[in-house]
């Protein structure tokens, strides 16, 4: 094995790229869970976003429009989940699973005829001055715009939950929906908005895979990224700051195993490919999760 072929600067730079799709999906799910809803359909919304973004980007020639299409696609799919769990009081775990199975089928159907096509290129931003700083420049400031959009969304969610009145209401709904209802807040409405935000973010994360990271469409291309995003939310104890840390940690594991594969490590490729999943399990075991939102996963039905 030739470890010297691994360039640490490139490694750290690709870490930021590898972390972005998981980070986008996870921040959406964080908001959903803070509103007291457990949506296990992240994987399904991600892959639907991936195919929607790809189809729109190929047909319009613009990756930006593609990302908007992906967000809309993810949000629309999450509406099914929202309708079933919020208005028909269905079991959230089962409905989330259904959303994943449905999304995988839907994406495979929509993506027919798009296999083997290349996505329109999404140029890296070479930020002047900042990008020229040695070491830090190439790691942090020479990426495609979506990396920064992802970071901006995380920062915005953090500020929204911590400082805004709407964020307080959302947390109240998630902690105790009966009390929030008694105070006159519209529990179902808040939750529907949160679910749609989660769907849109998962869609963006999926589109990042199909438009930037791969950039192609293949069936089942998310390969568990949505589930890893769910694990990161638990790891982050439902706090945006730690979510960032978690996403970069997993980005790091993914990139490192890919680099080891390329460097010809003595371990078989299959075992290296297990690394991100095994790391997820290890982290779930080691990290004692913080306290989950009080009403997480419970249906709300106003009896009057």
């Amino acid at each position: 094995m030739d470890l010297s072929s691994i360039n640490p600067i490139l490694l750290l730079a690709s870490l930021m790229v590898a972390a972005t799709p998981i980070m986008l999906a996870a921040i959406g799910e964080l908001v959903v869970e803070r509103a007291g809803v457990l949506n296990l359909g992240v994987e399904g919304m991600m892959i639907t976003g991936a195919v929607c973004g790809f189809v729109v980007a190929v047909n319009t020639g613009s990756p930006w429009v593609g990302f908007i299409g992906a967000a809309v696609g993810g949000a629309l799919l999450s509406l099914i989940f929202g309708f079933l769990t919020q208005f028909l009081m269905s079991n959230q775990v089962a409905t989330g699973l259904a959303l994943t199975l449905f999304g995988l089928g839907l994406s495979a159907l929509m993506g027919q005829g798009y296999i083997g096509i290349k996505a329109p290129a999404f140029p890296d931003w070479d930020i002047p001055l900042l990008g020229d700083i040695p070491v830090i420049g190439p790691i942090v400031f020479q990426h495609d715009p979506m990396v920064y959009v992802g970071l901006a969304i995380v920062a915005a969610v953090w500020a929204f939950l911590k400082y805004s009145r709407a964020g307080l209401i959302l947390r109240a709904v998630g902690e105790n929906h009966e009390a929030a209802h008694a105070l006159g807040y519209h529990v179902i409405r808040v939750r529907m908005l949160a679910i749609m935000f989660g769907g849109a973010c998962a869609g963006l994360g999926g589109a990042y895979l199909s438009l930037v990271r791969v950039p192609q469409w293949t069936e089942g291309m998310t390969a568990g990224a949505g589930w890893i995003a769910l694990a990161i939310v638990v790891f982050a104890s439902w706090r945006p700051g730690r979510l960032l840390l978690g996403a970069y940690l997993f980005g790091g594991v993914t990139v490192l195993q890919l680099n080891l594969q390329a460097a010809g490590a003595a371990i078989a490729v299959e075992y290296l490919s297990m690394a991100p999943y095994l790391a997820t399990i290890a982290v779930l075991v080691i990290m004692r999760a913080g306290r989950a939102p009080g009403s997480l996963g419970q249906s709300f039905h106003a009896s009057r």
Partner: protein
Amino acid sequence: MLMLEKRPQPSRAWTYATPVLAVVLTMLCGGLLFAALGQDPFETIRTIFLDPLFSEFAWFYRPQLLIKGAPLVLIAIGLSFGFRAGIWNIGAEGQYIVGAICGAAVGLAFFPLESFIIFPLMVLAGAVGGLLWAMIPGFLRVRFGTNEILVSLMLVYVAEQLLASMALGTLRNPDGMGFPGSRNLAQYPSATSWINQSAGMHWGVVTGFIAVIFAYIALSRHIFGFNVRLSGQSPRAAKFAGVNPGKLVLICMGISGALAGLAGLFEVSGPAGQVSIDFGAGYGFTAIIVAFLGRLHPVGILLAGGLMALTYIGGEIAQSNLGLPVAAIQLLQGMLLFFLLAVDVLTNYRVNWGRQPA
């Protein structure tokens, strides 16, 4: 205005009616989907749901029903225990794969020896393999409070990589001229699960029926089934009744893992024949739909497994005769689960039209 009023007790009539309603709604919506894909909706629905049973080639498709249904029923029966108790093992696909690998490895180790003891040993290895794979999320939940949904699912991806490694390396057929995949177990008389291949009978089908009977007895006539149901409906009450929650998690995960492992073993030594990269066909995930469609009841699961097998076979016919994409069938199955969960509201809630509930 439409108002929902919670029923004091779930409606019995709707419990039986909702799965049927969900199937009808899926057919309607599926018809619209097929029409949107440019197919004749009636023709397609008939091809998927009726042709496997009643067409002139039905003699060929009916055995297929047993072959596709057996793993679904076996896995779903196992899952139903956990789902009833609020233990979500959704990694049955991984346990299915690992069971197949373990069982096949035992069989391949004996090749070319012929003995009556080989197949029972393989069955044991398959069950133990699936059981141990399921014990990982079970143990982690009991010991560390880790979420079993995420862990069991992560282990599916790990199992798929393990399968690839086995098919390309350890278990590869030494006489296979470098092609990936193991020796064909279906052509190894001491190791095959086939009883009568042309009738679609293999030991997985037999075990499936036995599992249904045992599950029925356990759930309705045994204290274990009572504890499972109690834990799902009221964990606190179960604790007071002396149910050890940790033990229940391990038992439920163990049952589902062992049955999924068995399903994998019977599949690899019969219909699939060999350990290959594409061995995992998603039965572990479809079985989740089967379990819910069957209302987590053994007899219901048997019927639901048959129906789901029907959509698989009908989907294949529609694919070859009408050019329907495979993904459309996957979508149809997902739709079925959605409708099922949606109409479930009628079981637990009463709909009031325009009147305020008294």
